[in-house]
């Protein structure tokens, strides 16, 4: 992790190498590239990112507003769209807190204690990241679908999971499973157990120590993890597509609603709903920049 002083040094270094060309002709610094190579590299990076990242984002908003503001608002206030927005919010409101509690518990166990099999446990926690979203949906169909392991029992008892809201929630929980734990584990490992031990020595109970010492120490990373988890929960497509059955107005989340509209050649409405999801992504990115600067300060302050 670069601290402030190395960044300042880098800046001084760059300024020294780049701005003196006008007065005295100096050779490129030995640990940097010459001005031409530098310009080419920066140019290539920006061109590549504009083509692959910026353009798709811009096209979402352009296509959404192609038929004017009226059509845009109409696409978002139409009953099926409203139902999709409500379902998406509800699924995220269940999935994110579940993974939040898990993330804190897992990070507490992994970061504050030593035990055999720890790295294996961390690999298992990361597992959902390497599983295709479609496979994530499939495994729940194999468990709870009509021909699934528990399918017979569920039919007898009238429990519906697949092609219903519970299946959507489960698939979402699966794909967003590691997000919060992933953010907390490295940070809490770095912070060690010193603060908690002091609090306990001074007579705080375990719960007091957690609320007053640990939680304030990890608050920015926790919030960042929640944001990432939420963005993925609201935007998940593959896993949810497999278990939802896409019953319009009932089991369609916003991304599924986008798919249905797009396949109906209702491009303006599809992009209108997509633009709301794109806005969510932009908010997530802005919040990420803010939170990262806050918690890298926090880390830097602690290590000095």
């Amino acid at each position, binding site marked *: 992790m670069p601290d402030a002083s190395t960044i300042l040094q880098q800046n001084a270094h760059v300024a020294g190498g780049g701005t003196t060309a006008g007065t005295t002709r100096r050779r490129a610094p030995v640990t940097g590239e010459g001005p031409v190579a530098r310009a080419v590299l920066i140019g290539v990076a920006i061109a590549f990112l504009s083509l692959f990242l910026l353009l798709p984002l811009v*096209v979402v908003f352009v296509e959404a507003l192609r038929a004017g503001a009226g059509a845009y608002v109409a696409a978002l206030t139409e009953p099926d769209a409203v139902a999709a927005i409500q379902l998406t919010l509800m699924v995220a409101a269940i999935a994110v807190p579940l993974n939040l509690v898990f993330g804190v518990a897992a990070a507490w166990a992994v970061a504050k204690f030593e035990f055999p099999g720890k790295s294996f446990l961390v690999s298992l926690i990361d597992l959902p990241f390497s599983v295709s979203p479609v496979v994530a949906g499939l495994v729940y169909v194999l468990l709870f679908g009509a021909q699934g392991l528990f399918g017979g029992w569920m039919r007898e008892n009238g429990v519906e999971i697949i092609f219903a809201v519970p299946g959507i929630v489960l698939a979402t929980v699966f794909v967003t499973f590691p997000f919060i734990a992933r953010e907390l584990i490295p940070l809490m490992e770095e912070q060690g157990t010193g603060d908690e031990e002091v609090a306990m020595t001074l007579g705080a109970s375990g719960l007091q120590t957690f609320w007053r010492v640990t939680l304030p120490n990890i608050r920015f990373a926790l919030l960042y993890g929640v944001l990432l988890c939420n963005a993925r929960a609201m935007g998940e497509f593959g896993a949810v597509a497999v278990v939802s059955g896409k019953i319009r107005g009932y089991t369609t989340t916003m991304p599924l609603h986008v798919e249905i509209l797009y396949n109906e050649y209702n491009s303006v409405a599809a992009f209108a709903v*997509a633009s709301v999801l794109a806005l969510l992504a932009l908010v997530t990115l802005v919040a990420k920049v803010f939170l990262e600067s806050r918690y890298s300060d926090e880390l830097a302050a602690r290590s000095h």
Partner: protein
Amino acid sequence: MAFSFRRKSAIPGFGLALGYTIAYLGLIVLLPLAALVLRAAEVGPSGLYTLVTDPRVLGALRTSFGLALLAAATNAVFGMIVAWVLVRYRFPGRGLVDAAVDLPFALPTAVAGIALAALYAPNGWIGSLFEPYGIKIAFTPLGIYIALVFIGLPFIVRTVQPVIAECDREIEEASATLGANRWQTVFRVVLPPLTPALLTGFALAFARGVGEYGSIIFIAGNIPYISEIAPLLIVIKLEEYDYAGATAIATVMLVVAFAILLAINLVQAWSRRRLGHA
């Protein structure tokens, strides 16, 4: 007694935290994956072999794996350049560019999918530039490749970036003092220690690409044997209630995912031993 295997600690909550972690992990992740393994066992090895070697399935697997490899390789080159530029140079808008790298993580895949399809379709902003030359991008394997490059970029940049930031500049100075020119220094001194991070990022991008669904299906055209990806074929088999067929494809993909996970862990262990960092 149950958790007496841990080292003594003054901090409470170990049993509860670990117990909850394992129970939740078991219920949400391991039990469902076990259902897949169980189903695959029911079908049996010879049955799985027959299902997987069906020409359409093989074609889909080839499309998914081949294009994911190609896209990860593309991203290894451009991701490396982006990471280098972001760490080493200061230029106006650098913060914005840095933040933009995460866009594919944050943007829902379905949104990316329809946006890319609109851009690269024959009448789209980019597609119309290539159309006069008879080059079709959307609804061909080339479109799948474009979507996979989009999805994979942040994996390379975000794994390589911190390692470049940690590079010791004194080694580069030493190399220059000893008479190496800048190219020699870059290729012989700077890049070799970045290899483990680059391989990790490559493996992550590849794994993501193989399993990717949402950003691809809109731009792919989904023509069997040509531009049909493995995850889509799983969905098609499920819609036909062919659970065995879906399970067979998913098993191959899961085995590869595990192998990649293992490979990443090995690369990181190797790099810790060799270079003292992951």
